[in-house]
């Protein structure tokens, strides 16, 4: 009856997480600035991310993350140092994580609802995990930087893959 208030809600991605996701993508792009092979895919990924977040398209956000990772890996292959590579890949994963959060929260709650607290808590969790991982990776790299016995590396890598397979089988859904 009231003509006003009959607008369906704006289900676009929320602003805070979108901005944070773009920040993460910018970090990755900056970390890949030493090589054009790395920089171009990252820049492309950033643009796709902007488009995905503007339109609320989850697939574009995922694609953008993929492009960012490709950029970082290419950079690493052509000889980037370890620290930018680690920061870059973390930024790429964070961009997907925060971008997907923006899309999901926007779709479920819309832009008008107060959601800052939820988004900040989620972003803090992901960023802390990322920072810890980068720090850990750098420590491992430093300690192993000298002599690299092949057996040791193989042991570490096999351990990582076994852990990965084990984790893939763990289901966070209880019961």
């Amino acid at each position, binding site marked *: *009856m*009231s*003509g006003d*208030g*009959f607008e*369906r*809600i704006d289900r676009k991605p929320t602003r805070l997480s979108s901005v944070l996701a773009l920040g993460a993508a910018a970090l990755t792009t900056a970390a890949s600035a030493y090589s054009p092979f790395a920089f171009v895919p990252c820049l492309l990924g950033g643009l796709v991310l902007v488009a995905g977040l503007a339109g609320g398209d989850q*697939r574009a956000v*995922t694609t953008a*993350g993929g492009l960012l990772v490709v950029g970082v*890996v290419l950079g*690493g*292959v052509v000889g980037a140092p*370890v620290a930018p*590579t*680690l920061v870059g*890949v*973390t930024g790429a*994963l964070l961009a*997907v*994580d925060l971008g997907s*959060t923006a899309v999901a*929260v926007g*779709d*479920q*709650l819309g832009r008008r*609802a*107060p959601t800052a*607290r*939820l988004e900040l*808590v*989620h972003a803090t969790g992901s960023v802390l*995990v990322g920072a*810890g*991982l980068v720090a850990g990776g750098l420590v*491992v*790299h430093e300690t*192993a930087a000298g002599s*690299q*016995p092949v*057996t*040791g590396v*193989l*042991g*570490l*890598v*096999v*351990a*990582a*893959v*076994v*852990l*990965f397979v*084990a*984790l*893939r089988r*763990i289901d*966070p*859904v*209880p019961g």
Partner: protein
Amino acid sequence: MNRRYLLLALGVVLFGVGILEQQEPGTVPVPAAGTLLTGFGGLVLLYGAVVYLGSRGQRLDHADTPDVEIQRPTRVPGTDLDETLDGFPGPDDLYSNGFDSRRRRLEEAAVAVLTRRRGLDTARAREAVRTGEWTERRWARAYLGEDIPEPERAVSLARLFATESARERSRRRTVDAIAAAAGVGSDDRAVDTGPGGEEATDTDPELLAGAVEAGTTGRAGTAGDHRRTGHWAGVGLVVLVCVGLGLVLEVPGVLLAGAVGLGYVAYARSTRPGAVDLSATRSVSDTEPDPGDTVEVTVTVTNQGGFCPDLRVVDGVPESLSVAEGSPRCGTALRGGGSVTFSYTLRAAAGTHEFGPVLVVARNLSGSVERERCLEVVSKLRAVPSPVPVQASVPLRRQPTQYAGDRTTDTGGDGIEFRSVREYRPGDSLTRIDWNRRARTGELTTLEFNRERATRVVLLLDTRRSARVGPEPAGPDAVTRAVAGAQRLFPALLDDGHQVGIATLGAGEQYLAPDTGRSHRKRGRDLLAAGPASYVQTSHYSRPWYWIPKLRARFPEDTQLLVLSPLVDAQTVRIVRQLEAYGYPTTVISPDPTTTETPGHRLMGARRTLLVSALRATGVPVLDWKASTSLEELLTREVTTR
């Protein structure tokens, strides 16, 4: 279960051995060569390919939330062309012939319009459609006729990018031509030329079809289960690609990037959703507002369990109300014992409105799992309108009862309005003897007046699901208008001295026997004040032959019916005809739910026009109540044209 932890333990042991070997080369007596590493890298890449192929179809998934901000949109009749054609009356019968192709059904519709509106017989009408002489519109003639060439197609840019095919365009023009032949929406549109005819509504098709969930009531069924969101899907692939490439190309940075991905996989897999124990309360600033007032609603959600990092809350706004300001949604994180409060304002509409449960979607910290919960909170809002009785006389059918009243009948007797003069008969009242004539001529004559007598009326409201239609999604549906009309007709009819009752079409439990008096007036008002929301059919008996006998058993003798129905289907017309045939003089006040927005909607208007005229043909007066007309205007016009 056990294997997974065995793998986990193996991984940790290998990791330790690897670290040891790094520090003290030669501890492990296994010789390893660089080619072994490269080979292993290749295997990992292969595994990555397998994982990628296995997860290609997966998509990120999250719970949908209903559009609680808006009231449930009114379905606009005619949005679905097939449905309109299904219920289109045939040329000879109220029901259509059930042809399967759209072209055949459109042809039948055109024939029906020609026979019923232009008075052609069926054979002539068929001939006219075949030869194309039924309309001036060339595309429609070509679409339905035989061997009529299509007009030349002008090539234009707009047509190149049009979303509909040539066939669809022809069909739409035919639909438009049929509606125009029935006299619906025949404004001077550029029909055959260019994109002038390419009109489409910009209203959301979901809203037009009324297919939008506007409350949380239906959600209880899906709530409760944990669900994987796939939020971190794809990270596994990053791990395998990085590790594989790192090994094959011997780049430590890329190898370690794989380790970072592995950390995120662990994060996604290990954070548990936790035991979510929530409760909610809701306070409404005014539970009995006047219609049109704004009401503030405050919702508080309290966490009685452990830390909830991610809560998405949607309040169950009544489907029949819309939010005026603020948002009935909130996203937050709550530690144990914490609570969150949010508020918004509603605009109250007439009727009783029940809130649905509060919908909560809880996620774990990494966002990999979510769980939907419905928190039952009972609140009600009741806005009782104070209707003004209709300021016009209600056009009832002429029918006497033994009670004195206002209704002019066709029999002579006491009254005010002069009717005739007749010879004096013993027993005539002295006051009715024409004394002037007696003085002039000496004859004794008696004056006859139109007798004014009361009538027994039952307001019969069509509240079936099929009547929940209206001309615009945001506007009131025909049931709402019927109830609002009944609220004003009921006291007006009582004021005129009639006995008035209330009933609904269908097997509904709402019934008030015709009566008069103050307490009856109050009962009727309360019954109608409950609003259309409480009239939703709950009975299984949707077939009229179940409930028509029950309805008839309730009506007293000499009752006339005032049916309030949108008359959108042939079945309703048949029901009204049946009631009339059973001896209840029936009048229909029909809130018009059709619109002229698109050709499909106009065809629906044409269908209703045919149904209304079919009903009028049997002698039942039908008052066509347009959305823009007030009830007074409608009734006054009816009385003056009679």
